[in-house]
């Protein structure tokens, strides 16, 4: 079998669709610390995947490399077969090109990052109107539907400052969804929440997964990984150590590191 050309995306085996998301040989160092070492990741369309691992394993950095919030030192990222961050000839994309491809991915952050000077509704319609050029009316109509979906219709005109953490994160999810993204990236979406608020955010994410959204979720919520995800990726020391269906991973981890991790967290 021929080795795949590293500068082009690979296609899934069942059909000729490209992966929703593909990372090839991603390396990233901060100073002398190597955070990611030759990481490969493929996410078929419609898959909900969780990335697990101890802190410092590089999972958040990998997620941030996927939408180029961190620039990988080497390696390639593809979104639905299209390059992210670097053009096919290897040159860095301009800000405009990068913005265009980023607009096709949604990202939800640990610290919510809602824009405090905008109301909830303004937060949700900002990128659709300003980046996609959608009309304000159309964006508001879509935003209202999404706010209803995350259970926050009555908060549309308040400022983020007055919301609880769980509400903020649900607004952040609605904000990302309003761009109709092909893929949703979640960077520890519940880690900054009080325990009693985690459930409301996970419920929204569970709905999304059941609707077939392609999701990559960096998380410490083992129950979410086990019950909702189709695949689990376990990272340690900057490498993907295991990749399996959750049932296999949680009942029968193949590596010693994963076993140790699971006894501590699960």
């Amino acid at each position, binding site marked *: 079998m021929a080795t795949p050309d590293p500068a082009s995306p690979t296609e899934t085996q069942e059909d000729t669709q490209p992966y929703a998301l593909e990372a090839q040989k991603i390396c990233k160092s901060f100073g002398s610390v190597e955070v990611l070492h030759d990481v490969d990741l493929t996410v078929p369309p419609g898959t909900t995947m969780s990335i697990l691992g101890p802190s410092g394993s590089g999972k958040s950095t990998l997620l941030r490399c996927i939408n180029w919030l961190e620039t990988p030192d080497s390696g390639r990222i593809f979104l639905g077969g299209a390059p992210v961050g670097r053009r096919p000839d290897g040159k860095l994309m301009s800000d405009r090109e990068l913005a265009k491809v980023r607009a096709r*991915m949604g990202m939800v952050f640990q610290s919510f990052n809602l824009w405090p*000077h905008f109301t909830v509704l303004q937060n949700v319609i900002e990128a659709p109107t300003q980046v996609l050029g959608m009309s304000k009316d159309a964006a508001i109509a879509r935003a209202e539907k999404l706010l209803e979906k995350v259970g926050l219709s009555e908060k549309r005109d308040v400022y983020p400052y007055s919301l609880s953490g769980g509400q903020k994160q649900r607004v952040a999810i609605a904000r990302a969804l309003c761009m109709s993204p092909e893929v949703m990236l979640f960077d520890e979406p519940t880690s900054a929440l009080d325990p009693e608020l985690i459930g409301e955010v996970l419920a929204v994410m569970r709905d999304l997964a059941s609707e077939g959204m392609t999701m990559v979720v960096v998380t410490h919520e083992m129950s979410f990984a086990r019950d909702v995800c189709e695949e689990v990726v376990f990272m340690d020391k900057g490498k993907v150590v295991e990749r399996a269906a959750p049932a296999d991973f949680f009942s029968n981890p193949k590596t010693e590191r994963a076993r140790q991790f699971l006894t501590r967290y699960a």
Partner: protein
Amino acid sequence: MTDWEIVFSEWPRFAAGFGTTLTLFLLSTIGAFLIGMLFVNILYGRNRIARKAVGIYIDGMRMLPFLIFVYLLYYGLPSVGISMSAWTAGIVGLTLYHCAYVAEILRGAWSQLPSGQAEAARAQGHHGLRMFGRIILPQLVLNSAPILGNQLIYMLKDTAFLMIITVQELTYAASSVQSMYFVPLEPFVVALLLYWLMSLSIEGIVLIVNRFAKERGLGDT
């Protein structure tokens, strides 16, 4: 005529001076903000040489007395072949001097802004000037309104220095009434009250901006 009556009979002079001061102040405010915003974008940009140059400019300006700066602009530059009217020199001086402070205030506010604010915008495809204008700048202004207001008051008071390069602003008006009629007190009391009025207006605007900030959980709460 009493001294006060003399002063009031000269009201057109004060009115003209007040108008000049206000115009100088407003135009320089706009100029200083535009250049200040440009500078802060360069300071947070990728061009290392431009960053360094702007840093040196800001530090250099802040170490320079304003009076000497405008003196050089108006009386010094003609000797190297650049001459401008007193009015132009005044606006250029105020703008170039105070933009350094505005840039520094905005830079300070930006350094306090969580990095996630820009990341969330970038992650949704925002970039460039539009991202700065819609996501970053409003927060910088809301978070630093009192300090910006303070700087505007400094700028207003610095317009008085322009008298020495013959700009006929408010202090010039007071001074000329004083020397025409030998009334040393009253003209300056009038000028002072007018400066107060303008400063209080600036303070008023700061209060309104601060209320905006508080409603959003921002600013000096």
